[in-house]
């Protein structure tokens, strides 16, 4: 194996020296730690300290998801059923895709406000081209043309952002309006095209045979195992420590159990005794494949690493020789391309496309990404986070829908959740840049009390948590994470209380 500089070969510019295995063994103890050492307990501890450090990832969203599921299960007898579970997945699919699309640009600290209308206008192109009453092209060709128009839109945005230097907010706001006009012209005023192609309708409305769901789970496990093993082999070959293998088994176990529960639930008959409906909706594997490819690119290839680097510090990336313009440009193209797929999912689900199709979706997409833990400031977040965030938003929509609340409530709650998530994002960012690694000093009393209190009374948690945050900002001390959590939990409780109160009032009125 090759190394650059060891104490034995101190001269830079000399070709990489070759070390034999004994030399590796001799220098091993000399390596700086990598946080991979130790058993499962150490790893768990390291994970906890990362959480405390503000790297919470999708955890708040997952917690929120569970809370919402429990809450709605109490509030509506229809919520916790196999049929609604399948509904939830298909309702969420298009938002998951849109959230993932937006993640590519949000990671750069950019935004694409036109992603929703991109989905709309390209689906307008699609239906006009594929409609039997229209051009009646083969649906695949029609879709490829729609996709190409989407990529063209992304190229357009990328050009104006990267080459001309207009903030993406402005370019895409312009497109948000302009493309709505284009969509209206393509569809015609008051026009509405039904999706008639069975293959397109099947994406959201048909299911895989039950056995295929299980095969899918096995494939997921196999891929996860294989990538872990490749990583481990490479690390071993380089002579750096691997995480304990138990951790890999735990992860595979969690995937296996969760996957099995989902697939089992989806193999139950959720139709009628006469017309059985079973199996995983076809949209699920398509989404998973795109999620996997996107994650692979972001985590394991130069493109992904450079995207994160630009999101973290554009100047650093530029000085490292990264072609910032190109990377950013491609991100906009990817975003628009995935937005087209999100549009296809939505069209398949709704069954028709009209002039307003996709118009209101983009903010939900942004909310999905942010709620899931993708930072609006760029550089932090994963596709998986956007997917989880989309599930949270969809659960809110789905659950409130079952409660027969006016649709205004849904918008209010979603908006509140977005602002809450963005606040957590902003607060943890301040923490990441200002605070030192291990804040010292006494634990802030307000933080502890506020955290405990937040479970009992929302207001107490918010007030004490906020006091603690400001005290720690002024005077230092530990407990900032607890304080933020106290505020967050308090706000979540308030929101839940609000929903329950509104529900109760509406129920009382009849």
């Amino acid at each position: 194996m090759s190394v650059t500089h060891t104490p034995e070969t101190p001269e830079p510019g000399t070709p990489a020296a070759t070390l034999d295995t004994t030399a590796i063994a001799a220098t091993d103890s000399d390596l700086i730690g990598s946080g991979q050492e130790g058993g499962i307990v150490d790893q768990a501890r390291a994970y906890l300290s990362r959480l405390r450090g503000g790297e919470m990832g999708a955890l708040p969203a997952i917690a929120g998801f569970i809370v919402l599921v429990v809450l709605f299960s109490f509030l509506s007898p229809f919520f916790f059923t196999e049929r609604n579970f399948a509904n939830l997945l298909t309702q969420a699919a298009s938002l998951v895709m849109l959230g993932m699309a937006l993640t590519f640009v949000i990671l750069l600290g950019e935004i694409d406000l036109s992603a929703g209308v991109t989905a709309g206008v390209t689906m307008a192109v699609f239906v006009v081209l594929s409609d039997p009453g229209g051009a009646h092209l083969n649906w695949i060709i029609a879709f490829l043309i729609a996709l190409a128009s989407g990529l063209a839109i992304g190229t357009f945005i990328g050009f104006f952002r990267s080459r001309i230097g207009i903030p993406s907010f402005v370019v895409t706001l312009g497109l948000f309006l302009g493309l709505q006009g284009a969509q209206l012209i393509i569809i015609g005023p008051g026009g509405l095209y039904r999706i008639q192609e069975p293959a397109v309708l099947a994406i959201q409305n048909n299911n895989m045979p039950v056995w295929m769901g299980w095969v899918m789970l096995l494939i997921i496990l196999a891929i996860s195992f294989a990538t872990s093993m490749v990583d481990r082999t490479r690390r071993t070959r380089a002579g750096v420590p691997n995480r304990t293998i138990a951790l890999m088994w735990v992860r595979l176990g969690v995937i296996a159990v969760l996957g099995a529960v989902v697939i089992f639930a989806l193999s139950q008959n959720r139709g009628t005794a006469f017309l059985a409906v079973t199996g995983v909706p076809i949209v699920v594997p398509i989404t998973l494949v795109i999620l996997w490819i996107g994650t692979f690119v972001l985590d394991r290839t130069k493109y992904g690493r450079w995207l994160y680097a630009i999101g973290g510090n554009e100047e650093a990336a530029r000085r490292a020789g990264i072609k910032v313009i190109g990377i950013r440009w491609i991100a906009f193209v990817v975003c628009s391309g995935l937005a087209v797929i999100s549009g296809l999912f939505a069209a398949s689900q709704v069954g028709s496309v009209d002039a307003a199709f996709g118009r209101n979706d983009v903010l939900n997409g942004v909310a999905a990404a942010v709620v899931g833990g993708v930072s609006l400031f760029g550089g932090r977040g994963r596709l998986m986070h956007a997917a989880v965030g989309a599930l949270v938003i969809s659960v809110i929509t789905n659950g409130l829908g079952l409660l027969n609340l006016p649709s205004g409530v849904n918008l209010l709650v979603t908006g509140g959740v977005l602002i809450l998530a963005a606040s957590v994002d902003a607060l943890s960012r301040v923490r990441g840049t200002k605070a030192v690694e291990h804040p010292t000093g006494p634990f802030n009393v307000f933080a502890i009390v506020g955290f405990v209190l937040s479970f009992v009374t929302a207001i107490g948690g918010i007030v004490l948590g906020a006091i603690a945050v400001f005290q720690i900002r002024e005077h230092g001390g530990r407990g900032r994470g607890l304080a933020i959590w106290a505020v967050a939990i308090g706000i979540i409780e308030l929101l839940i209380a609000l929903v329950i109160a509104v529900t109760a009032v509406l129920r009382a009125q009849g």
Partner: protein
Amino acid sequence: MAESSELRPLIELVDVKKGFGPVSVLKGVALKAYPGKVTALVGDNGAGKSTLIKGLAGVQPYDEGQIIFDGEPVTLHTPRDASALGIEVVYQDLALADNLDIVQNMFLGREETELLTFDEGRMEREASETLRSLSVRTVKSVRQKVSSLSGGQRQTVAIARSVLKKARLVILDEPTAALGVAQTEQVLNLVRRLAEQGVAVIIISHNLADVFEVADYISVLYLGQMVAEVETAKTTRDDVVGYITGAKTQARGAAA
């Protein structure tokens, strides 16, 4: 480094000029830096130090003058030209991505891949070994996010990054300006270690204590002219202050 190469400067600037419109900022400057040696570039605010460095980095080419690198005349028109020769600049605003870890930052833009995917093990090992070769002891884990590092540790990562790139000339623009006593000491040690590895180091600093501690040679810029190039061992602080303030001048090239 081989003894013989110590006689020959790795880089030599001859009669370099640079102006912005009517203002001439560098009025025929000469500078030499030797492999394995630390050359301090000092001078008052506005003397032209940064302008001189930007020319070497290829960020802002000189108007006139000759650049001789390793005995050969070269042109430095883009950062890529400089990079290709092994010239690395560690800027004062360190240019690290906070959201990435130490390994990722050190390899940014030159990641090791196999079958298009990262060979994280290899990068981690090389990063670790590079830091060790510089006797870095304060970094606990190379997988720490840079956002969690102190100023001195960040400086360390930025410098180690240039070592990893096999730089032959490393230019540090005020590397200790924002650091406390202990961290300054760490970084100065690192600079020495860098020179010991055979790298030619140019360090810009306003802090003469640092300069006298770390530098082998001191070059003084005064209003766009190189007024002194002296060996640290053969000069005093008062003399250098004199050169910087323009109170004293030295015959050209006396120490070179």
